[in-house]
C-alpha cells in the first residue's frame, strides 16, 4: 500500500526527452512555490523594483523608499484587517469608511468638543468597534451576505461621518476649541519621524505583527482558517463559526480605525470622505498577496508584499510622469496578471500532485 500513503509533491520523474516544456514549467512552479508561497507577488515586486531602479535612477533612494512606505502605511493597516476577513471567506468593504469615521470622531472630540487626548482617541476606536460589531451582527445574526452587509455599512458609515463633521474638514474655524488641532500623540505618530524614518511606518509594522500574531499564534486565528477553509467542518468540530466571524470583523474595524486615526495625524486634519476607495486597494493588496478570496488560505506576509506592489507601482509611474489615467489602467492590469500567475501556480501544483 505504498501509494496509499501520500502523493508525491514532485512532478513525475523520468520525463521523456520531448517534455522539455513541461520540465521548465515544473521548475517555474517549484520556484514560485518555493518563495514562501507568496509566489507571483514576490516575483512581481522584485521585477517592478528592478525595472524602476534601472529606468529611474532616483527611484531606489532611501528618501523615495521611505516616501513610498509612508504613503502606503495607512493602506497597510486596513489591508491587514482585510486579510483576516478574507481568510474567513468574508469581505469587508467598509474598512475605508470606518477609517474615515474613526479619524473624524477622534478629531471632532478633541478639536471641537475639547475632550482630552486619550478620551478622543478611545472614542475614535470605539466608533470603529461599533461598526465592526454591527457588521458582525448583521452577517452572523441577520444572515446578510458579507459583501452586502459591509456595502451597506460603507455607505451608512460615510453618512455618519458626514453628520459628525457637518461635512466640513476637522478642525474647522467655526467650531474649533481655541488652540486645538489633532491630538499631539496622533500627529506625532502620524507625521513624526525618528531620524529619517516616519513613525507611521512603525505603526503599520506593529499592525502587521498583530495581524500575523492573531492568525498564526492564537486559537482565534486557527478558528479563522478553519471557518474560511470549510465552514461546515469547523462547525462540526465545535468551533463557534458566528463568534469567529464576529470578532474578525471587529478586529478588521479596529485596525481600520487605527489607520484612520494615523491618517488624520499624517494630514493634521480629518474629514468624512478621506481614504476614499481605499477599500478596493486593500482587497487588491490582499489578493495580490496570494490570499484566496474563497477563504481558508493566506498570510499577512503576502498582504504586506501586495501593499508594496501597489505602492511601488504608483510611485514608480509617478516618477516617470505617467498620467493618472494610465496609472489606473496599468495598476488594474497588474492586479489581474499577478492573480492569474498565482492561479496558474496553484493549478499546476495541484496537477503535479494529482499526476503522481
Amino acid at each position, binding site marked *: 500500500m505504498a501509494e496509499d500513503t*501520500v502523493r508525491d509533491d514532485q512532478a513525475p520523474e523520468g520525463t521523456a526527452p520531448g517534455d522539455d516544456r513541461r520540465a521548465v514549467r515544473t521548475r517555474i512552479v517549484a520556484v514560485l512555490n518555493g518563495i514562501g508561497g507568496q509566489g507571483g507577488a514576490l516575483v512581481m515586486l522584485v521585477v517592478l523594483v528592478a525595472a524602476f531602479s534601472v529606468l529611474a535612477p532616483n527611484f531606489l533612494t532611501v528618501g523615495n523608499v521611505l516616501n513610498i512606505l509612508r504613503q502606503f502605511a495607512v493602506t497597510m493597516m486596513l489591508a491587514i484587517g482585510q486579510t483576516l476577513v478574507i481568510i474567513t471567506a468574508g469581505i469587508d468593504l467598509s474598512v475605508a469608511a470606518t477609517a474615515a469615521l474613526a479619524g473624524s470622531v477622534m478629531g471632532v472630540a478633541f478639536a471641537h468638543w475639547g475632550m482630552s487626548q486619550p478620551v478622543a482617541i478611545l472614542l475614535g476606536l470605539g466608533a470603529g468597534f461599533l461598526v465592526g460589531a454591527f457588521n458582525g451582527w448583521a452577517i452572523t445574526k441577520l444572515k446578510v451576505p458579507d459583501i452586502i452587509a459591509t456595502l451597506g455599512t460603507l455607505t451608512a458609515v460615510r453618512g455618519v461621518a458626514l453628520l459628525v463633521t457637518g461635512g466640513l474638514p476637522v478642525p474647522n474655524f467655526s467650531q474649533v476649541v481655541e488652540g486645538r488641532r489633532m491630538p499631539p500623540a496622533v500627529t506625532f505618530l502620524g507625521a513624526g519621524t525618528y531620524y529619517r524614518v516616519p513613525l507611521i511606518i512603525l505603526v503599520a509594522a506593529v499592525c502587521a505583527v498583530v495581524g500575523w500574531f492573531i492568525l498564526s499564534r492564537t486559537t482565534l486565528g*486557527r478558528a479563522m*482558517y478553519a471557518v474560511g*477553509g*470549510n465552514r*461546515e*467542518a469547523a462547525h462540526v*468540530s465545535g468551533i463557534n463559526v458566528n463568534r469567529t466571524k464576529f470578532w474578525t470583523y471587529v478586529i478588521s474595524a479596529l485596525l481600520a480605525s487605527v489607520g484612520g486615526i494615523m491618517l488624520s495625524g499624517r494630514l493634521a486634519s480629518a474629514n468624512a470622505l478621506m481614504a476614499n476607495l481605499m477599500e478596493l486597494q486593500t482587497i487588491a493588496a490582499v489578493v495580490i498577496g496570494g490570499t484566496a478570496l474563497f477563504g481558508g488560505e493566506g498570510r499577512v506576509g503576502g498582504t504586506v508584499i501586495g501593499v508594496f506592489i501597489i505602492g511601488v507601482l504608483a510611485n514608480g509611474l509617478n516618477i516617470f510622469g505617467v498620467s493618472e489615467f494610465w496609472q489606473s489602467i496599468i495598476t488594474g492590469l497588474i492586479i489581474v496578471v499577478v492573480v492569474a500567475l498565482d492561479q496558474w501556480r496553484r493549478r499546476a501544483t495541484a496537477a503535479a500532485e494529482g499526476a503522481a
Partner: protein
Amino acid sequence: MPLLEVRGVHKVYPGVRALAGVDLTVEAGEVHALLGENGAGKSTLMKAVAGAVTPNAGDLLLDGEPVPFGSPQTSRDRGIGIVYQELSLVPALSIAENVLLGRLPRTRFGLVDWKAVRTSVAPHLERVGLDVDPRRSVRDFGMAERQLVEIAKAVSSNVRVLLLDEPTSALSDRESRRLFGVIHDLTGSGVAVVYVSHRLPEVVAIADRITVLRDGEHVETVPAEGVSEQQLARMMVGRAVDGPTSARAAGTAGSGADVVLRATGLARRPRLAPVDLELRAGEIVGIFGLVGAGRTRLARTLFGLEPATEGSLEVFGAPVTLRSPADAIAAGIGYVGEDRAAGLIHRMSVGANITLASLSRTRRGPLMDFARERDLAEHYVDQLGIRVPTIDALVETLSGGNQQKVLLARWLCSQARILILDDPVRGVDVGAKEEVYRLVTQLSAEGVAVLLLTSEIKEARTYADRVLVMADGAITAALPADASEDQIMTAAGGVHG
C-alpha cells in the same frame, strides 16, 4: 435484436472496481429494473450508458449499432435519455425553458420565439401527464412535478431508452404511483425504461425484467413475474444470506455495561419521528436504512447539528440539550458524517485537522500551544496508523482511508466516548475499509460506544452487536445482529410494501 445492449463493461476508479464486465440487454417497450446495494455499480452503469462516465472496456449497442462511450451529447442524440437522482433543472427558469434548455426555438432575429416554445413544449408535457402552465418557474413545484419535468425534458429529444436513477427516492407513495403511470405510458409507445432502485416492492411491481448487480458484477437477470422480494434480497446481498452470524458474537458487549446515551422520544419534526434509543459503553449498534430512511437525520440530531424539537436525551446519565455540535462535543460525543469532504479542512495540515475539535486541549489562554498540539497529533497518528510523512502534510494529499482515520483521530483527541459514524467507509477502498472497521471494533473494546449508520446490511451484521432498522424517519425494528439479511431488508423496505 435487443434495443439496447451493453457488453462486458469494466470501470475502475482509483482503488475501487466499480464495474467488472457487466452485460445488460434491454428490449423495446420493457421496464428493466437494475437492482443492487449501495456501491453495487448501478449508477456507474447508468452513467456509462448515458455517456457521463467513460468505461475502461466494453461495448454499447443501440439497435445493434455501436454507440461510442464518453459523450453525453452522442448518447442523447442517439435516443438515450437519463434522469439523475439529483435533478438537474434550473429552478429559476420556467418549465418550458427547462424542457427545451439549450435548444430554445428562435425567431429570425435570433431572439427566443416564445410562441414556438409554448407550442413545442405542450406535447412533451402531455406525454408525461403534466397539466400545468409551462410558463411558471420550476421552483414553484414539488419534487414529483420536477421529476416529471425532467422526464419531459428527456423524452423531448426523441428518446428511445430512458434511464431513471432512483426516481422515487424523494416521492411519496401517491406521487410514485403517478410516476409509474407515466412510465407505463412511455413503454406503451415503445420506449425502453431502465429503472434503478433498491426498493424491492416497487421494483417487483413495475418491472418486466430485473437485473441484479453486486460488487460491480452481474448476478442474474430474471423476469419480474413470480420472483419474490426475498429472492431478490438474497441476490442483492450475496450467497451467505442466512449463513454464519456476525463476527461479534451477539452479546459480547452491552447488556451489563452502563447506558451512556439514552434518547426518549427524541424527534425533529417533521422529518424525524420520535426515536427511543439506548447505547451502552463498549457497544456497537448498527442503524440500517435505505437512502432517505432518516439515518443521517437521526445522527445529525444526536450530534446537535439539527437540534431536536421534542423528546429528551441523557448522556452518561445526565440530561443534556444539544443545540450545536459544541454542546455534543462537550458531552463526549463525536461524529463522522457521511460526506468525508464536509468534515475535513483540506488546506489544513493533518495535525491541525486532528486537533480541531480539541482546541481546549491545545490552548494556553487565547494562544495555541503548538508543542502540545504536535504531541497530541503525533500520538493519534501513531495510534491509528495514519500513513503520513509528517503531521504537517496537507490533509487533502491523503488517500480516502487515511482521511477517514484523521476524522476518527479528531474524535479520539477530543476524548469522545460516544462515536456516531455515518457510513464511515463510503468511498474507501477494500483494504482501508477493513482497517477502519478494525479500529472501530478496537475502540469499542476500550469502552467507546459506537452508533454505526450504514446502508450495507453486511456491515451492520458483521460489526454491530445489534441492529436498528429505520424507514421513513422512524425506527421500524430492533433486531439482533444474527437476524437474517432478509429480515433486515424487509424491515427497511416494509413500509413501502
